[in-house]
């Protein structure tokens, strides 16, 4: 709740800076506000408060996701804040509102709030994807994302309407209670509602077979916005998915788990195989994000006492690695703009720190042992094996093996291929961001308990 208030205030402040002539302090103010929001939302730890007649509930999981979102937002502002020159105030305002929407998505306990959160986040993203107005690809990305996204929102609303029609409640707890009495509710309608909501949420996390927008939008949108989509939007959508399906539909898990299994396996296969074929870095990361959506779905399918912690850990590791890799993509993209894997050639000589950070990020995404990505996958697979989903784990491992190829291609391009010798310099902020992100990736790999012990309590 505190985070929501601070983020909304930050957005309105950003809109006013143009009039008040405070544009100079916008960047530092945003950083301070985000840190303040992190502290303020940390203060709610352990209280398990529910606000406004149970519209949203800040339980410990919600706070952890909020902190993660705010951290991703903070890192995003540090990476991209200085590179946004056109429409600076609008960018800052829309992105702080988007973060507020994301916070609503991870703390909701009422379907109306879920809907509003998803809409605030999505509409901001549609606009931002098209923010490079003179670029054809950016316009295409915005239009594609908007048309398909509004269609999926229609599915979400229809699903919510059906769920409300048969359970008589918008509250996750009310829906769960109604499902416990199967005699008094129309089962077919409930299933149809769950299916429609599932469709829409799988679209939002870019899972197979609703992933077709992801490569085009990731590639077409400006680099900075793609970084935001791959981190904040992914966290919020996955967390909301887990929150809804564990809190409201948890007791009917065997009815939707098989559908979700097929979606997860499809995402892992299509994502990983699609990424192998890509030359464009952002397109490759889009397919990789489809694959990672598949891994995260495993946690939603298993729904046992390990899966919540495993999912949080997985999303954290994924976000850190994604942000780190986008920090480098944005930096390199400022120098030479084609965005292909080959544009990283010789980065090891041109900018050793960036190359090292990118290497760590890629290794973590591929799940190589000492890094956090390995333990993220390990905890996730462990949770799935507890529920005897051996075949799902086997498919996931097969997908991971494929993924090693394309992540190592990036490393190969940076460290072994010869490119231009011209050095790329780092600003102090970039050095700090790269160091922090790679340090966290290593630290969580060595001591995963730092995060995991929080969620058990």
């Amino acid at each position, binding site marked *: 709740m505190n985070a929501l208030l601070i983020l*909304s205030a930050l*957005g*309105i402040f950003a*809109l006013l800076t143009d009039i008040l002539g405070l544009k100079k302090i916008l960047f530092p103010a945003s950083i301070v506000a985000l840190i303040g929001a992190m502290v303020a939302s940390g203060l709610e730890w352990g209280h398990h408060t529910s*606000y*406004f*007649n149970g*519209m*949203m509930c800040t339980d410990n999981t919600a706070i952890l996701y909020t902190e993660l979102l705010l951290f991703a937002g903070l890192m995003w502002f540090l990476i991209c804040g200085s590179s946004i020159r*056109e*429409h600076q105030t*609008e960018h800052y*305002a*829309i992105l702080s*509102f*988007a973060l*507020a*929407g994301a916070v*609503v998505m991870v703390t909701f306990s*009422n379907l*109306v*709030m879920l809907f*509003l*959160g998803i*809409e*605030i986040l999505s*509409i*901001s993203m*549609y*606009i931002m994807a*098209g*923010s490079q*107005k*003179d670029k054809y690809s950016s316009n295409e990305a915005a239009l594609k994302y908007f048309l398909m996204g509004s269609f999926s929102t229609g599915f979400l609303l229809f699903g919510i309407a*059906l769920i409300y*029609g*048969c359970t008589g409640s918008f509250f996750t707890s009310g829906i769960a209670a109604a499902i416990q009495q199967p005699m*008094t*509710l*129309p*089962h*077919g*309608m409930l*299933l*149809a*509602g769950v*299916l429609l909501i599932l469709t829409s949420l799988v679209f939002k996390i870019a899972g197979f077979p609703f992933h077709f927008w992801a490569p085009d939008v990731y590639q077409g949108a400006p680099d900075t916005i793609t970084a935001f989509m791959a981190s904040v939007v992914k966290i919020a959508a996955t967390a909301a998915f887990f929150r809804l399906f564990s809190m409201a539909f948890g007791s009917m898990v065997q009815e939707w788990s098989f559908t979700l299994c097929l979606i997860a396996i499809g995402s892992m296969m299509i994502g990983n195989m699609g990424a192998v074929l890509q030359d464009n870095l952002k397109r490759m990361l889009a397919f990789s994000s489809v694959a990672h959506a598949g891994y995260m779905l495993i946690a939603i399918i298993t729904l046992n006492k390990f899966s919540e912690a495993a999912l949080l850990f997985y999303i954290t590791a994924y976000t850190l690695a994604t942000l780190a890799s986008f920090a480098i993509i944005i930096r390199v993209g400022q120098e030479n703009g084609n965005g292909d894997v080959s544009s990283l050639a010789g980065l090891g000589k041109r900018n050793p720190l960036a190359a090292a950070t990118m290497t760590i990020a890629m290794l973590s995404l591929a799940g190589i042992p000492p890094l956090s990505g390995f333990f993220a996958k390990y905890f996730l697979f462990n949770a799935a094996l507890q529920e005897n989903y051996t075949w799902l784990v086997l498919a996931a491992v097969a997908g991971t093996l494929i993924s090693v190829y394309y992540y190592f291609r990036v490393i190969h391009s940076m460290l072994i291929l010869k490119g231009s010798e011209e050095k790329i310099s780092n600003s102090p902020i970039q050095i700090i961001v790269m160091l922090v992100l790679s340090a966290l990736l290593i630290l969580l790999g060595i001591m995963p308990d730092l995060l995991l012990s929080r969620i058990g309590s």
Partner: protein
Amino acid sequence: MLTQYLFYFLSFLAIFSALLVVFSKNPVQSVLSLIVTFFAIAGHYVLLNAQFLAAVHVIVYAGAIMVLFLFVIMLLNLNEDSEPQKPGWIKFAATITGGLLMVVMIAALRSAAEMPAPQKVDASIGMIKNLGHVLFTDFALPFEISSLLFLVAMVGAVMLGKKEIHNP
């Protein structure tokens, strides 16, 4: 009894004009049939005792959105000849998916029909007074949060619509 006849009449009108929207070749005709659909649905809202919803539905959909539709159609100068032809397999796939969704919805509604009728509900629940009460007490937070949504949309519209001044 009258309500029942009215219900059947409105349902027939809504479905018939909705089919016209899809099947008519002329875009302007489609939009006009869509207006009829919206009015029929607004009639349903009145039957359900939700006057506020009916009024808003007419004002927003039949009023504002339809005018936008008509403007766009006129500005783009769409007519029968300029309607793009989709390849056959897309039409086939769309029919299959749409049909599947219809089967799911029919199954869903059938399961609802088999259920015992719900206990007597409060008939005044859709009245403006009750709606306002709920909106400003139980649903105060969503009500306020939706202002963020509109603000984002407005800022975005201004940003996308603003004319760029390029500094050389």
